[in-house]
């Protein structure tokens, strides 16, 4: 039943990120559904955190809006459950370790399983520190997604070999956010990743145009886009869904044609 694996089977995958509760519970549900209708193969649902140290200003803003509107981990589970009723594509949570730790690993992953959330991305839980959560996640069949960065070098082998779900390849140094250019030698990194990986690898961080998406998808198994989508929410507020549909459509068209 591995939904994450399935998402990469049809070809290159497009992964879209949206923050739960940004700017409201209902609008974030509509935005996620718009992205799915526009052809997204997987959705990352962000559980907002007060101090998102790996995020640029766009997603920081989304976290703040969502928290101010009362989004919580429990509400994010409700949102994911509502989305799950409408779709079979994989859903993964993206948040920081503290909200998961504080919720309780067992309670968190048990709810993921119950609702049908397939994985978890925690930027502040590197390979060496994922052990204590991973053990419990595995018990419930939830994948903890590992990241590989431009600085990973010798670490690529151990990370790639033990990765679960899919590999998140961080395109650039620094934090999330739209970049006009991605200068990292991703071809070289992907070459190294391909030697060891047992699961698909998708590239994220800074991808904002169909041209970039096409380029990244050509190098890997998929593309992850966050800030460029959240920027639309920032601009259109509760009425962002049609704009998100149009944008995600342009991105999925670019990715799926490869």
């Amino acid at each position, binding site marked *: 039943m591995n939904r994450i694996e399935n998402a990469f089977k049809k070809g290159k995958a497009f992964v879209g990120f949206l923050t739960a509760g940004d700017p409201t519970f209902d609008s974030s549900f509509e935005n996620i559904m718009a992205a799915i209708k526009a052809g997204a193969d997987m959705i990352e649902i962000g559980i907002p*955190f*007060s*101090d998102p*140290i*790996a995020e*640029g*200003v766009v997603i*920081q803003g989304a976290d703040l809006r969502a*928290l101010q509107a009362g989004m*919580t*981990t*429990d509400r994010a589970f409700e949102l994911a459950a509502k989305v799950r009723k409408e779709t079979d594509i994989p859903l993964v949570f993206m948040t*920081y*370790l*503290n*909200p*998961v*730790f*504080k*919720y309780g690993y067992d309670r968190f992953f048990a709810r993921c399983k119950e609702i049908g959330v397939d994985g978890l991305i925690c*930027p*502040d*839980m*590197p*390979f*060496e*520190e994922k052990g204590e959560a991973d053990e419990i996640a595995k018990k419930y069949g939830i994948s903890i997604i*590992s*990241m*590989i*960065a*431009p*600085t*990973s*070098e010798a*670490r690529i082998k151990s*990370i790639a070999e033990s990765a679960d779900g899919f590999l998140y390849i*961080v395109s650039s*140094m*620094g*934090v999330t956010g739209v970049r006009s250019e991605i200068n990292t030698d991703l071809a070289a990194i992907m070459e190294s990743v391909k030697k060891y990986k047992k699961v698909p690898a998708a590239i994220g961080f800074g991808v904002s145009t169909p041209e970039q998406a096409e380029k990244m998808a050509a190098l890997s198994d998929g593309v992850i886009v966050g800030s460029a989508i959240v920027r639309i929410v920032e601009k259109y507020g509760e009425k962002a869904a049609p704009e998100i549909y149009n944008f995600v459509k342009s991105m999925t068209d670019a990715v799926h044609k490869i």
Partner: protein
Amino acid sequence: MSNGRYGDFGGQYVPETLMNEIHKLEEAYEHFSKDPDFIAELDKLNREYANRPSLLYYAEKMTRDLGGAKIYFKREDLNHTGSHKINNVLGQCLLAKKMGKTRIIAETGAGQHGVAAATAAALMDLECEIFMGKEDTIRQALNVYRMELLGAKVHPVTTGTMTLKDAVNEAMRDWSSRVDDTLYVLGSVMGPHPFPMMVRDFQSVISREAREQILELEGKLPTAVMACVGGGSNAMGMFYNFINDKDVRLIGCEAAGRGVHTGETAATIATGSVGVFHGMKSLFCQNEYGQIAPVYSISAGLDYPGIGPEHAYLHSIGRAEYVPVTDDEAVNAFEYIARTEGIICAVESAHAVAHLMKIAPTMKKDDIIICCLSGRGDKDVAAIARYRGIDLHE
């Protein structure tokens, strides 16, 4: 302690982008901390530049006035740049040079670590950028200008609560975008390993000296040593060489703000719970969902929602005691030590002095307390005046 863990606390919870760099830092520190040349160079800087060893001062008048234990102050306020922060930055900046870095970044709350970092960077020809919460740049405007005089660039941080934790967030974001030429010179015994260990080692000079000094002066160990605790660097420095002296009480004084039951507090041990944040597993002020709580203290230097992992550990095994001290108590102590001993200490240090004033009278005349005066209080004079309703601005 192994693998950066103090019991269950500590660790390296940072984005993958930083992991390699943190490992490199670990290796470099492992190497240079044992290198005789590095040790000699740092020792020379401490003696000839930072004014070490710092005095262990017998506060005779306070001892008499409080009528109990004999009181000594470890005078870190007399160090160059006016606080214990210089001990750490000289070590880290020297390490940065040895690692071939050309730029350092640092967070600062009250500005003491920022000033110290800018000072060491000026001395060692390192480019320096400081992240400081916008609230704090207003509370400590003089220190901002001081850092600029020293050649540093100060970035006011406008995210979140615009205080120390947000400055740490921003410094981490900056570092993750630029590791090749940059070392993040963290100011406290917090963050991912090896920072808590490294900062503690550089600060442990405080207790190394104090232990020798008190044995020389009194021929015996103190009954208690105490210090204020935000992240906890001067306290770790004050505690470290006494940890194995089981009879010496270790007392950390947290900033309770308006009181631990008011919600306007920064007392992590008193009000926090276990979490993972800023690269470490430790205790944090947070809500039921793990969102980091806004904290408050009159002292910008203690205004931090967490505590270093080694403190969390010492607390968990009962080796150290931690007590909350309110704004009011700290301000009273600030005024008391000024009038009684002629010392204007930092409002951070005044938290320790306040608790000292509570416990000294309850102790015997042959008891000895060493209290760390972590910094001098010139920077706080205007804020204290305002606290007393006097409209004084820098």
